[in-house]
């Protein structure tokens, strides 16, 4: 080799040795029982689903700040490592790999159903605790030993919608996005609705990122349904569908799933959404002092909250974790047992616990109506 | 009578990927004359025309227009009154004959003049008259060459550069082509520089000529003298030392 080449190789070797030696001396990044408690977050921080991904992460930040300000958990601060799952299984898997194998976290909060379903095969074998304030796919019921969620399953939502709609109508059309969440909800709805004697006259599905629904809606119009159920993953798709339904001169009543209550969906749909009925997680009760305080603090820091239930559930997740860790430490097997046995947790979203499948027990979906551009609970 | 010098190439050197395509080339074109450029394949004849028209970067040497040094750029040469008819019947195949001629007069702003010139050019090449609206891609080889030639005349050029005008044409048409070249030179006083393989026909109408071999000029003389010398035989059989 020439002199220069030798020099370059020598420098590279020296650098590698120094870096390797430093890491060895410094030890693993988070020493066991001291230093911050690291929690991973996987949710849509970019992409269309950011409309709920971002507010939820804000709610988590709010909770973490509060916990840390009052001294942390057993003197240790909580530190969240945020990863962008883009509400897609593929990206969530990458994020989980990083969190579990590189950052070595033992607790993850994950948002979308698609994200959660795809990371469980990685987290379960590693005994990583996963909490979700948002994932609602029925496929997640009992999907993991270490999986808990404080968001109702769509198995309920789909059924509630079917029951609600079948009281008045017999022929319906449904348009759904092709994601795990929306497809699962669609399956549950169709099954329930048909078992109640109803007929699904049109069942259209669209790929994510679609912006022109007109020909699908034209097909639906042709079948003359009595109502149309709009079942999107993202608020943007949902709002656009409502707009285009009206533009095509379709005047039948509209029903929606949870995403339709989001502020972006309603902004895009505009006045076209008036009167739409949907099934949603209940709003945060004004009689619940924790909820009131939470909403105030959120509004002060981040502005008007949207999809309050998810925000509240995420906020609760941090405090549930804080409570559990302070009682049994950070060993995830012990945490899992604690959560299984926990009863009557008083959170922002109400009083609840986790059932034997890790699902939320004690809070159910309610019916809401869009009035004056807002989702209002209907008795 | 002292002829006005129109164009000069002084000591021109051109490189194509490491090879000297032209080396120390001196060429002159005066008003009213027909100059022949001859030599075997790869001698550099076409390159000289391309140099004049700014289609090839010059490594060394100068190009002089009316004895002033210039940097040749194609559309500027056109405006100066130089027209170039490249090798190979290059017409705009998707344009009609009429459109080809119109584009030939691109630098002429006045539409009336363009139409006048089209009339004039069709007199020189009457075969094209019947097919004005036909796309030039469907013409015969001979007709395309005529069209390329005619297109070159649309700017009423003072200098015409022709690169192998008889290439691939039937002998009868070749005779016509050379007759037209002579006609244009005599009637319109156009100076013409012609690169040709068909040396016999060319030297019949040319006034002067240059013989090239391997990028260098090996003979510069009147057409008559070149015909009578043996330089061409030597160059084409590679016997030149």
């Amino acid at each position, binding site marked *: 080799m020439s002199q220069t080449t030798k020099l370059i190789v020598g420098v590279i070797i020296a650098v590698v040795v120094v870096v390797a030696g430093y890491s060895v001396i410094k030890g693993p990044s988070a020493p066991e029982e001291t230093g911050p408690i690291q929690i991973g977050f996987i949710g849509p921080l970019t992409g269309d689903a950011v409309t709920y991904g971002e507010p939820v992460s804000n709610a988590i930040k709010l909770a973490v700040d509060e916990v840390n300000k009052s001294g942390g958990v057993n003197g240790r601060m909580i530190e969240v490592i945020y990863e962008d799952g883009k509400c897609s299984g593929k990206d969530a898997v990458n994020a989980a790999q990083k969190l579990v194998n590189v950052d070595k976290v033992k607790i993850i909060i994950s948002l979308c159903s698609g994200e959660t379903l795809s990371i469980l095969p990685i987290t379960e074998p590693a005994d990583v605790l996963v909490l979700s304030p948002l994932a609602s796919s029925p496929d997640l019921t009992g999907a993991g030993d270490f999986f808990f969620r404080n968001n109702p399953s769509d198995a309920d939502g789909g059924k509630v919608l079917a029951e609600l709609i079948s009281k008045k109508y017999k022929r319906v059309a449904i348009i759904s996005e092709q994601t795990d969440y929306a497809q699962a909800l669609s399956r549950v709805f169709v099954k329930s609705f048909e078992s109640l004697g109803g007929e699904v006259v049109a069942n259209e599905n669209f790929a994510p990122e679609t912006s022109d629904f007109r020909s699908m809606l034209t097909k639906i119009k042709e079948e003359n349904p009595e109502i149309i159920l709009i079942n999107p993953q993202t608020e943007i798709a949902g709002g656009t569908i409502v707009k285009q339904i009206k533009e095509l001169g379709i005047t039948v009543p509209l029903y929606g799933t949870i995403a339709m209550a989001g502020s972006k969906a309603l902004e895009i749909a505009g006045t076209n959404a008036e009167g739409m009925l949907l099934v949603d997680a209940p709003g945060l009760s004004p009689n619940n002092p924790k909820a009131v305080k939470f909403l105030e603090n959120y509004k002060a820091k981040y502005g008007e909250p949207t999809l309050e239930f998810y925000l509240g559930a995420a906020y609760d997740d941090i405090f549930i974790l804080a409570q559990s860790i302070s009682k049994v430490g950070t060993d995830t097997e012990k945490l899992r047992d604690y959560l299984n046995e926990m009863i009557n947790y008083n959170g922002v979203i109400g009083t609840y616990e986790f059932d034997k499948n890790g699902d939320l027990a004690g809070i159910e979906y309610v019916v809401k109506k869009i009035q004056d551009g807002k989702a209002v609970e209907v008795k | 009578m002292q002829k006005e010098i129109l164009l000069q190439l002084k000591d021109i050197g051109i490189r194509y990927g490491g090879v000297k395509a032209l080396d120390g080339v001196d060429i002159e074109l005066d008003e009213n004359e027909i100059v022949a450029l001859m030599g075997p394949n790869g001698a550099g004849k076409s390159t000289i025309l391309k140099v004049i028209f700014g289609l090839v970067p010059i490594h060394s040497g100068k190009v002089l227009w009316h004895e002033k040094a210039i940097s040749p750029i194609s559309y500027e040469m056109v405006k100066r009154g130089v027209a170039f008819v490249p090798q190979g019947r290059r*017409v705009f195949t998707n344009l009609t004959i009429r459109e080809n001629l119109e584009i030939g007069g691109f630098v002429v702003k006045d539409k009336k003049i363009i139409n006048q010139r089209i009339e004039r050019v069709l007199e020189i090449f009457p075969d094209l008259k019947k097919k004005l609206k036909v796309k030039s891609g469907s013409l015969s080889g001979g007709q395309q060459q005529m069209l390329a030639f005619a297109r070159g005349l649309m700017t009423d050029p003072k200098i015409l550069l022709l690169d192998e005008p008889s290439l691939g044409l039937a002998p009868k048409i070749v005779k016509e082509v050379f007759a037209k070249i002579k006609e244009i030179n005599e009637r319109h006083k156009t100076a013409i520089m012609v690169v040709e393989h068909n040396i016999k026909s060319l030297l019949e109408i040319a006034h002067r000529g240059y013989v090239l071999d391997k990028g260098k000029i090996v003979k510069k003389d009147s057409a008559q003298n070149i015909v009578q010398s043996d330089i061409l035989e030597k160059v084409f059989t590679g016997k030149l030392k």
Partner: protein
Amino acid sequence: MGIIPQLILNSIIAGAIYSLVAIGFSLIYGATKFFNLAHGVMAAIGGYSVFYFAKTLGWDLWLAVSIGMLLAGLIGYGLDKIIYKPLRKRKASNMVLLVASLGAFTALQAIIAILFTSQFQTISGNIGAQNIYEIFGGVITQTQLIILISAITIMAGLALLLKYTMFGKAIKAISDDEEVSKIVGINTDKIIGYVFFIGSVIAGLAGILVGFDTGIKPTMGLSLLLKGVIASIVGGIGNIYGGVLGAFLLGFVENFGIWKISGEWKDAIAFGLLIVFLIFRPRGIINN
């Protein structure tokens, strides 16, 4: 019977948008013989300019639209002057130009995302009540009518330009043979610059119209570009009329395709059309 008029209308509207993108793309390809991928982001530039000037700053809508189109044109022109022309001068291969255009596309799209966030935005102020017209048993909105009229106007205008002006004929000449065009006295670099400007202005308009119809997103250029490219190839690459034909064919195939097949296959159908043409008639509908 009832569904067919609506499907036809939907197809025509989609075809109109695609043809606006295809026209600019074909024009540029014809003159330069390379796939300018950055063409797609011109649409986003148009859409976002209107968003910024009309919605954020509150300026007059027509002014914002004009600025949007102008800005798209200038940036397209600028790309040619700063990146493509120097590369062409150095005899860069089409592969190199393609990669350069991809780089420009990515960079510009990223800048838009940084300035405006990646979020979907709407630019129409009037939410809810839009004028709706009934035509032959189908329904279209006011925005869609404007799309149709704009597309027809631009196509007609361009056709006239190409056929009757010297400038238009120079463009045809350059598309036919760039070297001979130079020989004939055309300043090809200058004309190509203008072609980039015109093509990009039209793409900008397409982005603005799509913005009014559905909304804008920094990545909107990509799907528009893909449809424009498919339309151009199917119709006969380099030929502007072919691009228009291909665009409408694409619009019809997409919308009628999902009539009998489920909606999620829409994009697959578009690409299926492309593949069919590439296999059986690669030169496109109008053979060049």
